[in-house]
């Protein structure tokens, strides 16, 4: 049973990874990152129930990640809005100051 939950989490994680790497709109990239974080949460809770040492720690850990993820989305959207005001675009391609 555990491995099916873990496989599910892996599928979600990879889909989220693909979206984070290849989508051009910054908001969609944020969404993909959220997807990856959710996959992690699933892993944690699954291990909390079926893991080698089942305990409640997994669920508590996932509570913390949920909070941090929420904070991160808030800050991320704020940055996006600020960038959009400056540049007029939300395209990830356009932000390439780190070149060379």
């Amino acid at each position, binding site marked *: *049973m*555990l*491995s*099916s*939950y873990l496989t*599910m989490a892996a*599928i*979600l*994680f*990879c*889909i*989220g*990874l*693909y*979206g984070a*790497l*290849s*989508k051009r*709109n*910054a*908001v*969609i990239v*944020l*969404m*993909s990152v*959220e*997807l990856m974080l*959710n996959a992690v*949460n*699933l892993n944690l*809770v699954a291990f*909390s*129930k*079926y*893991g*080698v040492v*089942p305990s*409640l720690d997994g*669920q*508590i850990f*996932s*509570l*913390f990640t*949920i*909070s*941090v*993820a*929420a*904070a991160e*989305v*808030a*800050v*991320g*959207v*704020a940055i996006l*809005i600020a960038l*959009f005001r400056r540049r007029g*675009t*939300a*395209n990830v391609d356009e932000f390439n100051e780190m070149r060379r």
Partner: protein
Amino acid sequence: MGGFYIDWSGELVAFFAFAVVMIVGAVLMLTLTKVVHMVVSLAAVFLGLGGMFVVLEAEFVAFVQVLIYSGAVTILLLFGIMMTDHQAAQHEPTRPVHEIVSAVAAIVLFGILFYAIRTTEFAPSAPPLQAGVDNAMEIGKQLYTQHVIPFELVSVLLTVAFIGAIVIAKKEAE
């Protein structure tokens, strides 16, 4: 789960149902064209995940998941979309090489993970968690005794985050 002998149980059925919802939602999220539709499918994924948490007997976590993710985070993302890009259709030049390579990389990564999952022996040293009747009470007990420091820190983090978000997103003074 070894071989093709499937031990049908209620848990398995529920798992499959929510799994289908989540995967369809995730794939739709990537393939739809209008951004608002993508957000809606993402919300579906969050809801499915909440259901899966219930199946895993983590009711409190499921409640928090639905409340925060498919509630707050989704609305936040919608606001983000509204403030930045109304154009739903993506008509910029495509980068086929990059997309194909990242798809391949993601698939290979999944292959590795799947292989790792299949070959690892998870021998539980104890029977699965009996969460008891009141999941929230148990979590609360642990949270305020063992994990009180991270709890306080998270509150600090949240404060800092929302102050930071306001500062960043504020319109500049003229």
